């Protein structure tokens, strides 16, 4: 496994939003390929469940809320200066369906904070503290929402994901001199708790699945495998890209 360019052996990867859904799948699948994981999330109990499923020794968890002012300090403190990061996966996300007439300043600011601003601030902090290696790989879990499509009630989510895409590209350009690569994986609908909360009803969900050429929503692991490619040396010349993984949804 160590010889494969897709191996993550010897790499230390920070994953936000690792307590559930896509973030948890990224933690578990990356660890299976040899990565040591620092799992970030809000819920300590669910983080512990993630950590228990991570097979690599030396992996750890850090509890932090991206809406709190001290989140950068907390997460950065969980990264050892002797062992700077080889990769980061930004999987923490917020998605509350709101028709445009109901969007308040507070809802907009919170979603923008979690989905776009927090990743930027965290990269800043980790760079300043020399905790992100030369040659590291940063992966945003973005979405087809915003960059490819919009849907009713998803204005805030789409706007924040577009913002994340733009930040991803800007970081890719500005950090290229350090050989740091920055990319985004843009999933269609994936079977997660966040998606379940966003769905209006079971009947609508079933209807939505039919609109996917592959006739189903994605599984968290199917997004994690794309993230692993971007984290690995196999993607050494890939930066600033949005990798769409959507069961063919945006073909239509």
């Amino acid at each position, binding site marked *: 496994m160590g010889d494969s360019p897709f191996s993550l052996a010897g790499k230390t990867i920070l994953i936000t939003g690792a307590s559930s859904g896509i973030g948890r799948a990224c933690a578990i699948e990356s660890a299976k390929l040899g990565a040591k994981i620092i799992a970030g999330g809000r819920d300590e109990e669910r983080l512990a469940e993630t950590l228990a499923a991570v097979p690599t020794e030396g992996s750890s968890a850090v509890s932090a809320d991206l809406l709190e002012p001290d989140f950068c300090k907390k997460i950065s403190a969980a990264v050892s200066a002797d062992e700077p990061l080889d990769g980061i996966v930004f999987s923490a996300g917020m998605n509350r*369906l709101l*028709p445009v007439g*109901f969007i308040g300043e507070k809802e907009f600011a919170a979603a923008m904070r979690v989905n776009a601003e927090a990743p930027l601030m965290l990269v800043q902090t980790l760079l300043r503290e020399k905790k992100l290696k030369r040659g590291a790989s940063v992966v945003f879990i973005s979405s087809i929402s915003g960059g490819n499509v919009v849907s*009713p*009630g998803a204005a805030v989510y789409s706007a924040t994901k577009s913002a994340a895409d733009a930040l991803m590209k800007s970081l890719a350009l500005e950090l290229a001199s350090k050989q740091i690569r920055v990319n985004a994986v843009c999933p269609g609908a994936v079977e997660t708790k966040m998606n379940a909360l966003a*769905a*209006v*009803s*079971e*009947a609508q969900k079933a209807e939505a699945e039919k609109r996917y050429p592959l006739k189903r929503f994605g599984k968290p692991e199917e997004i994690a495998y794309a993230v692993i490619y971007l984290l690995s040396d196999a993607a050494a010349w890939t930066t600033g890209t949005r990798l769409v993984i959507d069961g063919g949804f945006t073909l239509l």
Partner: protein
Amino acid sequence: MNFENFIEKIAPLFEETPPSALTAQTHYKELPEWTSLIALSLIVQVFNELGSTITGDDIEASATLGELFERVKKGAE
């Protein structure tokens, strides 16, 4: 929370139907302006204005505004 109070809060979502036409017997999903976006707006409005949590499944399951009101009352408990 009473029925009149409920109607007062949700009436603005139905732009083509006068509030007086919104009764307990109204089959609201058959109104001309009904869309999935109004369904979503209902969920948010009921939460913001009446402190009740309902889901799309509650809307699926209730044909009239009277039936929906019963679920809104339950959602506020």
